[in-house]
């Protein structure tokens, strides 16, 4: 339809009669244009943020090389050249580890060997795998943000969810996949929801700030996991180290493609994003969440219950974080240890901030952070640059995204002020 109208709308004369007719093509077009422009403007900050973070990351790589300064004095040109090479090697290893190398793809497709083609997609699969829990924790934190709550406790909720999910995963033998898997996923959601319900209830009833309570519940959850992993019946038989029994195969997320580790957990993450989006922007309850987050006083005068919204939002948020736990124990490790997460819950904060608490943005931000995680290990093994570089880059990305004024100051451009964070309160106020 749009193509047939193009020649007409290009000439100014034909535009005038066209706009008088009831047909609304140009209006649609301009709205589309506006949306595209808004979308592009929304991308300015994240893209500049990632760019700036990578630049600073490069500086960190160079400066942390102890021999750099000696070489700089001896031969400045060669030292700088070597430094640039080092940075490029690190970032290209990071990139290749995250999305694969073009030559591998070409070779694999040229050979026509299915195994080789599958193997070429391993980096992509690893990125999806790492992105899966991040989608859930990102959604968890974002849902809290939308309701004016800062859920720092996604990490603890993830662990409790994983604990419940693992139990359901090994305790019920003989169930078919289509019963056992949903059961285990549901158990994970329940565990996380329980751990999110506590701070929600306390905030609603007593005004206890959710940041302190969720931080404390994180540590409580870590200790709880350490305890549970030593309980006979939960601990794996014949083991003295803290590790759970292996979950049954009927509770595992099925693989997306045979031979790759990426699984249906990722699809569940996408579904969860759609559901959260619907909840927040299409349902009455979500409207109440956002109203309470935006202006609690006004929401109360409009007859909404702040307490109900707070408790419900924290509970669902915890449940989503719990799903992140299931995506690990039922998708990757197949058993629970105290080291399964490695900061997925905290990365969720970064992702929610970066995406401005929008579910669609969370998917992209999770893929980005998943790519960082997936690429970090090959980067370390190839170039010897420690994995922790990725943490530095991530922290810088959030810093730039959460303070648009900073980006504007550095690049001297106009960028929108909104960060998606306006909805949650300042300081410790209840």
């Amino acid at each position, binding site marked *: 339809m749009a193509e047939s109208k193009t020649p007409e709308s290009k000439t100014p004369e034909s535009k005038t009669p066209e706009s008088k007719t009831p047909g609304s093509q140009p209006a649609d077009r301009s709205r589309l244009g506006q949306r595209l422009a808004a979308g592009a403007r929304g991308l300015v900050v994240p893209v500049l943020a990632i760019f700036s973070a990578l630049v600073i990351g490069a500086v960190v790589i160079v400066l942390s090389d102890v021999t750099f300064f000696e070489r700089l004095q001896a031969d400045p040109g060669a030292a700088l050249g070597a430094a640039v090479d080092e940075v490029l090697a690190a970032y290209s290893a990071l990139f290749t580890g995250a999305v694969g190398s073009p030559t591998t793809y070409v070779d694999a497709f040229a050979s026509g060997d299915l195994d080789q083609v599958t193997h070429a997609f391993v980096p992509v699969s690893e990125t999806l795998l790492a992105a899966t829990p991040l989608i859930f924790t990102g959604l968890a934190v974002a849902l809290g943000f939308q309701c004016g709550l800062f859920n720092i406790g996604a990490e603890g909720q993830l662990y409790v969810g994983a604990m419940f999910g693992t139990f359901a995963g090994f305790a019920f033998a003989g169930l078919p996949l289509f019963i056992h898997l949903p059961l285990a996923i549901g158990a994970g959601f329940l565990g996380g929801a329980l751990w999110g319900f506590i701070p929600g209830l306390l905030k609603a009833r007593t005004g206890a700030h959710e940041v302190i309570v969720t931080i404390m519940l994180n540590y409580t959850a870590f200790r709880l996991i350490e305890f549970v992993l030593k309980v006979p019946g939960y601990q794996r038989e014949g083991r003295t180290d803290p590790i759970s029994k292996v979950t049954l195969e009927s509770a595992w997320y099925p693989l997306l493609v045979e031979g790759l580790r990426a699984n249906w957990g990722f699809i569940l993450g996408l579904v969860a994003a759609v559901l959260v989006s619907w909840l927040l922007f299409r349902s009455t309850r979500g409207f109440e969440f956002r109203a309470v987050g935006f202006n609690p006083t006004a929401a109360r005068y409009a007859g909404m219950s702040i307490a109900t919204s707070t408790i419900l939002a924290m509970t669902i948020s915890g449940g989503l974080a719990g799903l992140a736990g299931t995506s690990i124990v039922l998708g990757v490790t197949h058993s629970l240890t105290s080291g399964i997460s490695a900061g997925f819950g905290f990365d969720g904060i970064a992702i929610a901030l970066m995406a401005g608490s929008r579910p669609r943005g969370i998917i992209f931000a999770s893929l980005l952070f998943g790519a960082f995680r997936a690429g970090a290990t090959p980067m370390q093994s190839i170039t010897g*640059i420690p994995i*922790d570089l990725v943490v530095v880059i991530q922290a810088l990305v959030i810093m730039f995204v959460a303070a648009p004024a900073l980006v504007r100051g550095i690049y001297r451009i106009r960028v929108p002020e909104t960060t998606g964070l306006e909805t949650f309160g300042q300081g*410790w106020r209840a």
Partner: protein
Amino acid sequence: MTAVAASAPAVIVDRAAIRRQRILGVVYLIMAAVIAYFLTTEVTAEQTSTFVLKPAGSTGGLDVPSLVVPSMLAVYLAAGLCAALGAMQLIRGFGSRWAVVLGIVVVAFVFAFLTWAAAGRSMSLIGILQLTVQKGLPITFGALSGVLCERAGVVNIAIEGMLLSGAFTGAVVGSATGNNVVGVVAAALVGGALAGVLAVLAIRYKMNQIVAGTVINILASGLTSFVAARVLQSHRELNEPDKFTSMPIPLLSDIPIIGPMFFSGNIFMYILFVLIGLIHYGLFYTRWGLRVRAVGEHPRAADTVGINVLFTRYRNVVLGGMVAGIGGAYFTLGSTGSFVHDMTGGRGYIGLAAMIFGGWTPIGAFLASLIFGFADALQARLSILNVAVPSEFLLMVPYIVTIIVVAGLVGRVRMPAADGTPYEKG
């Protein structure tokens, strides 16, 4: 709830207060029941618990006899005390003295627990108390940092990152220069610099302060781990500082119990005492403190009378960062002797809780930190004693206590009114 109670006429009964009193009373009774039921298992009537009060290996000073109590009797006495206080709490309440009563009940509970754990053997109580102070030290530094920042109206959740970077800097600079004092100074400077970043983000760019603090924590964790893995692993000589040796103060360190606890530590302990005194005096008895508190409570009013609000905030946040940096150096230069990644293990967050627990005052924060330190110390010692209670639950106790306190089950703490709110000249 408290605001309502304060403004309502006195004759109207504050229902929330009554409910709190009831909850407390029931909690005391439950604790009494726990003591009487659980802490008497495997204890026989003739057993005694011995608490050693003289540090092992110490030769000088007064000879402090060990405390020997009949286990069974002591536990039942503690249970009786808790039950009696619980009953009184339920019947008539203690009014404004609830905090003292709560303290007594907690002490009775801990005493009963220790008696049970030490039944039929001897336990070095003085060792636990010494460890309590040591474990509480870095927490107090963190809490003091929080007090300095938040009294001026800036929420500092980045204490954890400042401790961590202080620990790292202390180890590296201390090893590189071979001079620990330089290490501590450098740690303070790096802590201050990190706080400067927080201040710019929070004050100049009006970024949400909790987000800014979280970012700094992630950044500090990432940077220190990165450099530790990239540099310190191959250059071990950069991570081998000499630890500060302990410096017992003559005479004072000979005082029974208190001497070994507070006057036999290394330099960090005395720096801490000086800081607590200085900050307490400064905040509450000087013009500087009055201005800081004015900025934290009502920045507009402070601005009107000519106080530079933004400058006061910058200065206090940077000072707070320096205090946290020194506290961080304790981990490497005062305690373990080398940097390990993420070695602060959430002490900064605990410090934050201690600050809230202590009602935003230096002395309160110190006492609250000692409670957290005690739980830490108890866990470390009891795991040696092979006590039947899983150590994980003991480790949970401080966190759960914090939640209960923050949830205001036992009365609300009052924070600076403008805490966390960016100031804009109107």
